[in-house]
């Protein structure tokens, strides 16, 4: 059951350049699954007009958290909201990552970690995590992730971590032999690379969370569609998690 409610900001702090973690206290307990998302309105006015969709980063009882990057007007306003402020939240929306039954692989590029963190928290000590960013300062929650994952391999483009290069290359070198389901979130170029890498390993299920500009989040406006092998699908309803082979990239 989707809901509309008010969340009170407990914390809203910068974690890296332009990356913030916001935690909200909700008036009632809710349930959301890894990969699902909520829409936050950054104010009560209609400027900016639309709410902003974010994957659930963490959820414990009444405390809901999102990791977000300041990218435009809406996230800029959001990043300036003080503790104590109440904002409108709707959700949870969308399809979640199918639950892993045993070991699994996670591939996260940059802010994509926001979508898979909760998955690793719900299914700890089973993930082979490949996590990439431009530089080491952008690798977030490293200590926590070390606890959650079974194996962790960090790549940076500048070469200040385990691997120098992009995360799909790191996965190609260290993870291609793993015959576990793959969960991935990151920029579209990463998803494209990954699909390419996996073209001869179609027996391995791979689920990716994607994003698209979105208005309602509940399947009514048809604004957030993307191309799939079965035609246009709504990211908010049929997604945001899709089998990678369903996507036309």
């Amino acid at each position, binding site marked *: 059951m989707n809901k509309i409610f008010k969340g009170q900001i407990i914390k809203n702090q910068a974690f890296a350049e332009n990356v913030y973690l916001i935690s909200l206290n909700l008036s009632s307990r809710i349930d959301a699954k890894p990969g699902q998302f909520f829409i936050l309105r950054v104010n009560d006015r209609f400027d*900016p007009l639309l709410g902003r969709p974010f994957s659930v980063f963490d959820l414990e009882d009444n405390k809901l958290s999102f990791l977000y990057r300041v990218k435009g007007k809406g996230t800029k306003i959001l990043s300036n909201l003080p503790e104590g402020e109440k904002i409108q939240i709707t959700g949870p929306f969308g399809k979640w990552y199918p639950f892993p039954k045993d070991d699994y692989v996670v591939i996260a590029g940059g802010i994509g970690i926001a979508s898979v963190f909760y998955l690793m928290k719900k299914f700890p000590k089973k993930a082979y995590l490949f996590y990439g960013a431009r530089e080491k300062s952008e690798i977030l929650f490293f200590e926590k992730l070390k606890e959650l994952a079974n194996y962790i391999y960090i790549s940076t483009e500048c070469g200040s971590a385990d691997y120098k290069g992009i995360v799909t290359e790191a996965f190609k070198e260290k993870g291609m032999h793993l015959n576990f389901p793959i969960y991935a979130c990151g920029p579209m170029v990463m998803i494209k690379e990954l699909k390419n890498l996996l073209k001869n390993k179609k027996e391995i299920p791979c689920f990716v969370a994607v994003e698209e500009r979105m*208005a309602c989040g509940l399947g009514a406006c*048809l604004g957030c569609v993307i191309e799939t092998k079965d035609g246009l699908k709504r990211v908010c309803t049929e997604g945001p998690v899709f089998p990678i082979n369903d996507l036309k990239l």
Partner: protein
Amino acid sequence: MKPLTEVKIGKLTLKNPVLTASGTFGYGLEYSQFLDLNLLGGIIIKGLSLNPKEGNPPPRIYETPCGMLNSIGLQNIGLNAFVKEKLPILKRFDTKIIVNFFGENLDEYIELAGKLDATDGIHALEMNVSCPNKKSEWRKMGLNPELLKKAVREVRRVTKKTLIIKLSPQVTDIEEMAKVCEEEGADALSLINTIPAMVIDIKTRKSIIGNPIGGLSGPAIRPIAVRMVWEASKAVEIPIIGIGGITSAEDALQFLIAGARAFAVGTANFINPLCSIEVIEGIERFLIEEGIKDINEIIGTFQQ
């Protein structure tokens, strides 16, 4: 005492003047998880065509100052799927179901209107003559009084249900278009549809959405909509449904004062799924505060 909020649109009696605008409320059921659809005066269903339609390529939406641009392209599941899958559930609600419809050509409009007329559970038809996302020779029907006259006349022949014509804002003389519809037997008018608009990505020099032109909606267009409702209401006797950027009871009341007998909440449904209900409650509060016993007393009371 609770004020009277019933209004009449053609043969329909709405329990209150609050509708949800076509294209912003899906098939209604998407919102039933958020609000009690029984509380609404009516639901205007997303534009239906005879056959399913996939719509325009993504990206389809872009936020603009106090508004949004869309090029959904009238994606819909088609008449048969609507009647089979959605309507039986919608029938359980005590609210009026108004189906927005369009065709690729006049014959399709006529065929579809006839089928909608014959379908139980559909209370009224809203004819789309003005969507900027439609590609056909008839896409300019709403801009051309002769084409509009012919189209309304032909569609009027095939339906006895309340026929609402949804007008385009893209005309210099809205009064003329309103009169044409009234003369040809339309029961009501709804206005405005989105305003054709563009946003350009300066790096790629392409449109920010999948089509060069999209439809602009939201609070940004409200003052234009209020003005056009006022102009149209002076020109015709048939009732008008005001649409354009309503987010609150205060916004909606402007439309009623300008001369609309009902109104539809549109884009705001995307942002606050409870908006339509909050508008109903806000209007009731306003009427009580102002000592107005019947909402009809406020309609068309604009003072010059």
